[in-house]
């Protein structure tokens, strides 16, 4: 039998490569114009670099070097760029702006056509606090998707702290909060509602808490008062400052969750009718840089380039 690539990896041949190059070029033009500089880091990092914040989307492949040290294949570019800032930009003037187009490596779950190696294109904005840093990144995100040629995309925006703080307000203890976030991360609204009903909450409170992760829509959902009022503060600030072209793409989503642990505030995710799964996402990670000796607020996004490419062909089919 002929040798093929490992499952979850693939070759890219010239016809597809030409299209991917052209797409990368269009993204690069937007990143450059917004003042971001390209960065390249090694595919292999020391294990310790990735050991603090991984979550489900952390590194999956480890190798020993010739001295017995453990190296990992990077699972994203955000952590290596945070390391670079700690290593090389100790006294640099802020904010720092980087962009990249580089492969990342994650575990592929069994029996699925998942990629172990996938191309990401994205930006990191370091030293720019909320809300203005977040707004800049969201505007660049929408500009780059438009430049890529997508016309029907939307960007879902949520806040990782929102649901946990609401649960805490209702006296749900930490163990149960963790359990509920896990169910929410699995998108199992039925199990969330059942778990809430079994907790020491009034029927009305349990129903309200079960309904919150389902709320998504235009800026009108940010007008909520009562218990949600305080938790929506950051999203309101972001909304007030978005460019009009970005604002009309946004879906506010009170149930948005991401599989990466280092996010600390506003998070986002890209949807397009041309593909059945999100094209990418990002958010604020205000604590990650402290791991590398520079406690700086930061925010960024990454697009899965192959999925953007699939969505482009999907949109052509739909509109075609």
């Amino acid at each position, binding site marked *: 039998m002929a040798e093929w690539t490992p499952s979850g990896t693939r070759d890219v041949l010239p016809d597809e490569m030409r299209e991917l190059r052209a797409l990368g070029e269009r993204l690069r033009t937007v990143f450059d114009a917004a003042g971001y500089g390209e960065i390249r880091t090694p595919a292999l990092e020391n294990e310790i670099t990735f050991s603090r914040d991984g979550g489900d989307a952390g590194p999956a492949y480890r190798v020993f070097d010739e001295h017995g040290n453990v190296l990992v294949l990077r699972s994203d570019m955000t952590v290596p760029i945070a390391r670079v800032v700690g290593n090389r930009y100790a006294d640099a003037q802020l904010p720092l702006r980087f962009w990249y187009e580089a492969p990342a490596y994650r575990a592929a*779950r*069994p*029996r*699925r056509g998942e990629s172990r190696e996938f191309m990401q294109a994205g930006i990191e904005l370091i030293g720019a606090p909320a809300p203005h840093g977040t707004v800049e990144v969201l505007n660049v995100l929408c500009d780059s998707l438009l430049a890529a040629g997508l016309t*029907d995309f*939307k960007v*879902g925006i949520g806040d990782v702290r929102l649901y946990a703080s609401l649960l805490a307000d209702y006296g749900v203890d930490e163990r149960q909060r963790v359990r509920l976030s896990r169910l929410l991360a*699995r*998108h*199992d*609204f*039925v*199990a969330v509602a059942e778990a809430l009903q079994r907790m020491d909450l009034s029927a009305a409170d349990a129903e309200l808490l079960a309904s919150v992760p389902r709320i*998504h*829509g235009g800026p009108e959902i940010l007008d909520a008062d009562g218990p949600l009022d305080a938790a929506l503060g950051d999203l309101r600030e972001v909304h007030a400052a978005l460019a009009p072209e970005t604002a009309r793409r946004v*879906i506010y*989503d009170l149930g948005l969750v991401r599989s990466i642990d280092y996010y600390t505030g506003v998070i986002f995710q890209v*949807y*397009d*009718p041309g*593909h*059945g*799964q*999100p094209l990418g996402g990002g958010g604020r990670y205000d604590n990650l840089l402290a791991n590398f000796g520079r406690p700086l607020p930061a925010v960024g996004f990454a697009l899965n380039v192959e999925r953007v490419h699939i969505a482009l062909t999907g949109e052509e*089919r*739909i*509109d*075609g």
Partner: protein
Amino acid sequence: MADAGARDSESGRVRLAVPRGALLGDTLDLLDRIGIDTTEVRENDRKLLFEDAGIITMRPSDVPTYVESGAADLGITGKDVLLEQAERELYELSDLRFGRCRMVLASVAGPDRVEEARRRLGIVRIATKYPRIASAYFERAGVQAEIVEVRGSVELAPLTGMVEAIVDLTATGTTLRENRLVIRDEIAVCTARLIANPVSLKLKTAAIDALLARIEATQVEDTKKPTAQGPGGQEPAAGRRGSNEV
């Protein structure tokens, strides 16, 4: 396919994956109640794609595949299927409450052979169509198990001595009883669930929310039925239908 996708996307119409088999009848009844015309589906056993009703039909275990890919925006399938395919990226929106079954551990009547094998052999052999549910169950219990995946009548496996027990879905328990098998443990209760593609849920919110609201309304009606007979329950519903026709 492509043109259908275009119409659906522009009009915000949703495409629903409907399971053939045991869940089909209740699923079609529910769709009728929320105003989706299923006549064509009921009349065609072999047709798979019903463009006018926005319905595609398939075996229940294929529903998550179509919904995850976005080929269907919504789907209806059993919780047993969702537990077995837990890694799928999709949303579980609603418990539809019909198709109630139990996932059980069962073995031949008499002394429990599972217990004997565990004690004397250190490992139990289990036949099932649900290898992931069975593995997870024995891992939780701290018991080493050899999972034997079978496609057809699972009941045969313990009767022939190939395995000590089975993990399988049962509605009434009749098939188990007829094969001299007794339930040793209940692993999960499974009902039909409404699932959604993650992108469709965000981009076709209005259409999906409207459908969910109509489903929830039928569930409220159902919970009221036993207590509110006569004037409280049946008549207003009939009255509504009447006024719609006018």
